[in-house]
């Protein structure tokens, strides 16, 4: 299959889907510094979007704006038809539909793995404890560490912790998963186990937005790759387009540096 055929196929696959995340002219300032300069993008339901770019390009800031960990000052963000405003009810609704995985895992160190995963289903989704626990065990099975349920996060390796963090997000049955450099804090030999889980997740059809430097992962599972620099989206395209035939000079420079 040629490159153009692949691009066309990907576009066709996404064309009739609903919009999941819509960002229009999103601006974000830290004091005088403008971190996001009119970011505009649409992510379709079931799409796997990879965001890459040099550090300081605003990719983490953007992904953190989508579930309101950062407050954007200009433009609109709409997630699954809900507009992100200062209205607390909207923020809560979006957060319960959007899962997030952090670079530093951010597990709760005083709770066991099982309690980490069941906390939100029990208290936010109001599920009975038994049901939440059986779901948590199923999720641990899915991320490949069913035997660690009773341990504390500090007793696990980095890769295991990140997989628990993914299970914790999935326990809320989100429609969108955001990954903020999920493998950057891991030792090289642990990166693969986390990426495998993410690949499995991508194939399951959930909407994913991934900030990462793992170009192998991007090439394999991304529907689209967005390249950011200086708070702007510079180039968008399918992996084939992006890796073999980038149009922008800045993209070429970036790729030459990391590949």
């Amino acid at each position: 299959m040629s490159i153009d055929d692949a691009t066309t196929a990907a576009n066709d696959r996404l064309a009739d889907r609903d919009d999941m995340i819509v960002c229009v002219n999103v601006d974000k300032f830290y004091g005088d510094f403008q971190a996001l300069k009119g970011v505009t993008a649409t992510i379709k339901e079931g799409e796997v979007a990879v965001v890459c770019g040099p550090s300081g390009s605003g990719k983490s800031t953007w992904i953190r704006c989508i579930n309101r960990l950062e407050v954007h000052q200009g433009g609109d963000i709409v997630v699954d038809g809900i507009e992100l405003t200062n209205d607390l009810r909207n923020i809560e609704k979006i957060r319960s539909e959007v899962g997030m995985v952090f670079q530093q895992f951010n597990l709760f160190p005083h709770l066991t793995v099982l309690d980490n995963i069941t906390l939100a289903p029990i208290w936010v989704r109001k599920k009975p404890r038994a049901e939440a626990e059986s779901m948590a065990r199923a999720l641990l099975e899915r991320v490949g560490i069913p035997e660690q349920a009773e341990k504390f996060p500090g007793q696990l390796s980095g890769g295991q912790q990140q997989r628990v963090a993914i299970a914790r997000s999935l326990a809320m049955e989100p429609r969108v998963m955001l990954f903020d450099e999920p493998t950057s804090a891991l030792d090289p030999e642990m990166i693969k186990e986390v990426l495998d889980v993410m690949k499995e997740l991508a194939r399951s059809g959930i909407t994913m937005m991934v900030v990462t430097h793992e170009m192998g992962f991007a090439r394999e599972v991304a529907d689209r790759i967005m390249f950011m620099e200086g708070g702007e989206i510079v180039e968008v395209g399918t992996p084939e387009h992006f890796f073999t035939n980038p149009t922008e000079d800045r993209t070429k420079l970036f790729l030459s540096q990391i590949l």
Partner: protein
Amino acid sequence: MEEEDPISVALTQEEGISPNEAPRLSVGQWLRTNLFSNWANTVLTILGALAAFLVLRGVLNFVFSENREWVAVRTNLRALMTLSYPESQYVRVWVALGFVVGLAGLSAGIWANWGGLPLRRLSTWFMGVGGLIALCVVVREPNVLVDSEGKALSTLEGSLQRESFGAAMADRVDWWIAAVVLFAFGAALWSRYSSVERRHVDLPITSIVYVGIGIAILTLWVVPYGHYAFVDGTYIAEPGTTVAFSTQMPWTVMWVLLGLGFFVGRFLRSSRYVGMSKAGSNLLWLICPFALFWVVLRDPALDYGHVISTDLPMGLAFGLLGAGALWLLTRSDIGEAGRIAATVLLVVAIFNWVAAFFGWYPMLQKARISFLLLALAALLAPNFIGDIAKRRQLVIGWLGVMALVHYLATMINTPSTVDLQSDEFLGGLGLTLFVAVIVVILSFPLGVLLALGRTSKFPIFRMLSTSYIEVIRGVPLISVLIFFSVMVPLFLPDGMELAELAAVLTGYTLFSAAYLAENVRGGLQSITKGQYEAADAIGLTAAQRTGFIVLPQALTVSIPQLVGQVISSFKETSLLAIIGLFDFLRVANSVIPAQSEFMGVKREGILVVAMIYFFFNFVISKYSQRLERRVGLGER
């Protein structure tokens, strides 16, 4: 059980029991590497040993001096514990203490995981105590010689004449026997349990503690501790009876209760009610200071005629009529009529208070309160409209609230039958412990709230909490206490009185809360931003985030500081003496020296008081170290 196994593993590891022990240094090598490694260390070692020798000799000479009147402390044990609490009512104190002791046993049974103490270690303790006693016997100076009238003899130069060293050792033969018996027992244990295969034979620490307490109580049956009674405003000695005689039986009962509580706790721990028992025992600890305070100081002199003619009918009327009204108000076809009825009830309830203010018509206070509660329940009623189960919940809740309110109102409004001799409140160690416990329990939630307020993102909370904390921390405790005991009554409206102790407790609680708040804030600042973000990202509300994620971690981090605050709250209760209350220290410092038999005998009492303070604080501090190790497990 899962969470406990790693702990016991961690604890045994810490005690150094590993299958392959590191090679040990011989005594000579140890001395050389640790004490005499170079000339400077040698000098420091010798100076240190000299200082230790002088301190020990000074303390022993003080304690065993023929000028000491330990009988003053022995006879005044009861005064040190409760001061003027009437003897006829002592059974209440025992009941209260028995409850605490039983609860302590129960909690130990449910929670304690103390593991075992190797007999080899225990044997070294015995040898150590035996050796220490022998050392003390030798170090103490020989007794002063006295003449036939008991006056100390002195040499021509004016210094005291002492018996010869040999005679002194012969005089102290009983101490020698004690030392030798203990040391020999330890050595026998050591030789039996020091072989490699018996090295790790353990005795459960719980049994060691229990037997130790038992031995201490056994001494009450043997040693005459003396007795001093407070009758008609003066203290008189009763040479015939001793405290030991009057307390040996109750203390033995306490000991049995402790054991029973422990076994019940162990049983619950292995049953499937373990979670419920843990929550239940915690709850009991929290409410027991207040409930026991009630037991010790109040037994309402109920006028049963009044109870039957007024209190009971009124409670029943409010309970049943209110229940009927609420049942009607939660009918599904009630509609707008429910709101109108609730509003009318609210207007009537408020009017009752207005009428009370202007004195238009008399009404019992509890009737006004009941009316107001009924109006509030009626306002809540729309939430319970629907199925029978929900309606029943509301009605049962109402009946429970009415029972509680009317019971408390009746009890509070009748005078106490506990007639304290003199106008002093409970005194002695009882007062000290009471104030310390109540202040810690009350100031803890307040301190946490203040800390959260100070770190809140709402400027008004932040400003209020910060200024409160800074103002209180800028004022000495003693001035807060004086302010609350002297000034506050002046500001209160006419006819409203606050017992001095209540005023002081309020002031002390407010003071302590400010310091606790700063300790908790330190813990709050140690929580990383990532924890807040993760909690937000999984959709927790701000309250859930605080309760499940932030506070548990923050409080864990601040355990050492919080325990420090508890200890200092306990010690600083001695400042109560300055505003006229008779705490433990003041009994030793002013009450005993004022008795005609023990005029001016002060030092003995103060030393004993200091030791008891130290004992409590040492236990608290040890417990907190254990707690730190326990909760630290989650972090690793």
